[in-house]
């Protein structure tokens, strides 16, 4: 997958300026497109076809029986009606949006903070910090989830024990998973912890591109730390921050493994997010059509929330080409 995507990127700018095209023979004109074809085809087969299938399945009744017998039963918008009429769906959607917003804000702010920090500390401390970040990033998702579960364990968790040692006696035997909100905060921390390294490195790379003399000039003009950040740092990394935010929204909106592994969307459904709902409808209950409808609605919600960025992306794409 990654290889395919990478292959496309360098080819992108290749098509020459229109004026040059007119003078070239057909074969030469077709060449860039022929070179693009395998990648486009691969993308269509691997991404386009499954996506189309999901949309089609969302208009079908596809339970275990239909799947086993290979029947195709079209039901129009029944699945959507069922999903959208469920009041729980709307509270889950709201919860998912808030949860995503929290995770993204936490990730980008922490990542930005660490990136700026890395720019200003000595090389030795920076290397230690970078190694720590890479290690945090390298921990497999479920391994990290298990560790977090241990940390927050009611009886044996190191967090409660530490808090008690620090004098907060009321945390002895405190359950971090007794309400949906508290559970989601723990999951959010886990997700932020896992996502920060990538964002921090990306933004740090952006910061490296800011010439040192700009900071010197700002220093000579007597700018304070905040002023320097606003006038020098921010303008040069703003596009990167936007991109990181956009990517984080995409990633955090569809997080499933961590949410499910911590409390299976509990207690009492209190930490159920849209991806968990999709699992419950699809895999657990074998209502694959309904699950597909949830998937399509999820995509629409994502599009609504990222429309602004998509517009910017499309516009800047036109300008650069």
């Amino acid at each position: 997958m990654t290889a395919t995507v990478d292959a496309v990127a360098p080819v992108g700018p290749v098509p020459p300026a229109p004026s040059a095209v007119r003078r070239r023979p057909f074969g030469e004109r077709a060449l860039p497109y022929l070179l693009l074809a395998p990648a486009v085809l691969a993308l269509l087969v691997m991404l386009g076809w499954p996506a189309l299938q999901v949309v089609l399945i969302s208009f079908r009744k596809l339970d275990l029986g239909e799947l086993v017998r290979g029947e195709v039963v079209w039901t129009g918008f029944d699945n959507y009606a069922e999903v959208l009429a469920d009041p729980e769906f709307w509270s889950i959607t709201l919860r998912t949006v808030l949860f995503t917003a929290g995770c993204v804000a936490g990730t980008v702010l922490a990542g930005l903070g660490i990136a700026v920090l890395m720019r200003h500390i000595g090389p030795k401390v920076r290397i230690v910090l970078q190694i720590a970040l890479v290690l945090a990033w390298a921990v497999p998702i479920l391994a990290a989830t298990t560790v977090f579960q241990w940390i927050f364990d009611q009886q044996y968790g190191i967090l409660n024990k530490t808090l008690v040692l620090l004098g907060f006696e009321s945390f002895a035997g405190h359950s971090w998973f007794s309400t949906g909100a508290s559970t989601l905060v723990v999951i959010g921390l886990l997700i932020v912890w896992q996502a920060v390294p990538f964002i921090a490195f990306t933004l740090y790379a952006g910061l490296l591109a800011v010439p040192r003399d700009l900071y010197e000039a700002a220093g000579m003009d007597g700018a304070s730390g905040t002023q320097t950040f606003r006038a020098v740092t921010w303008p040069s990394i703003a596009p990167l921050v936007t991109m990181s935010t956009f990517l984080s929204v995409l990633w955090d909106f569809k997080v499933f493994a961590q949410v499910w592994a911590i409390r299976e969307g509990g207690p009492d459904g209190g930490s159920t997010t849209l991806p968990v709902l999709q699992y419950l409808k699809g895999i657990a209950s074998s209502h694959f059509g309904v699950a597909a409808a949830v998937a399509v609605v999820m995509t629409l919600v994502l599009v609504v929330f990222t429309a602004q960025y998509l517009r910017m992306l499309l516009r800047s794409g036109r300008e650069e080409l």
Partner: protein
Amino acid sequence: MALLATGCGGGTAAGSGELTVWLMNGSAPTSLTDELHKEFEDKHPGVKVKYEIQQWTGIQDKLTTALAGNQPPDVVELGNTQNPKFAKERVLTDLTADASELAGSQWLEGLKQSGAWQGKQYGVPFYAANRSVIYRKDLFDKAGIKEPTSRAEWLEAIRKLKAANASDPEFQPLYLAGQNWYSLLSFIWDEGGDIAKQEGEKFTATLETAQVKSALEFYKQLVEVSGTKAPKDADEQKPEQAGVYGQGKVGMIIGLPWEVDTAAKTDPSIKAKSAAFPIPSKNAGTNAPVFQGGSNLAIPAGSKNAALAKDYLKLMTSAKYQSQLAKSGMVPGTSKDTGELEASPFGAAMAKGSRNGRAVPASPKWGTVEEGQNPLKDMLTAYLTGAKDATKATADAAAKLNGLLG
């Protein structure tokens, strides 16, 4: 993988001499299958048994693919809670008429129910296991406690054990996770209640009854009297209760016999110090009914060798092989003879309990309850933490259960 396996079967079945058997990992011991397959092949010259051991993880999807395919295996093992789902889809062979040849009179009731759909039998009991109370015999002896035979005695034993070990603040006479819903099932059935009733194809939750509320109350009593430190919002696997038991600070757990072996990984000496008794009933001298987990055997409807497969089932359900299953620590599904099982104290307790074995509602949608968000677990947590009272907790759980099964 499933396609591959069945594909291979198709390639060589031309000689008509191959029987593909899928059993699950950890079910029948190798010594049993080796002997059985030799006997089967001797009886059917020219037929070879193609024996494939399957993993539980992902088996539902694999079975779905395989049973829907053109070349399904000839004999499959199904978890008893999965059986109704497949029976309803008509992808299994109706074995109602063959029951007598398959030791039908000896079948375990709990498993038999799970293999039946609309009065027809699609699954034959294979083996089962159920929970009993695993306890520290050495600690019981030291405190002068005998195996309790009623709920009242059980609570009394917990109190005494707690008092006898009062010097150790970390000691828990009973470790009981808040969401051990299999134990709750026992208490509900013991009260004479149930979680759902069936009318035709429809299942309706019966959680809003006095019986279920009494069962919840007893559960709470166990938690409070024992002062268990187990989380109220997690089941017995989080953390694994056998591991906690193995640390030696726990007097009793409600568990499956092999959990003692898991505990022995932490402390090898603990098995010798442990024994087990059936879950006590509120009526002195009897045992509480228990949830019977286990497996059935079935013949996929698409099997090309159904006659051979039936012969295979005949052997597997015979007393000879069932006693070998019992010896390996399982409750045999088609034999009431549990002599081999009773050789170990854990097996003996399980065998006693198994006579009163029950099943979860045989709804094809039951898998949804176990694989998704189990309302019974949420009910327990809400009630034990005081978030909801019994009336509200049972009403909410009933509504959810109806939504899942309806």
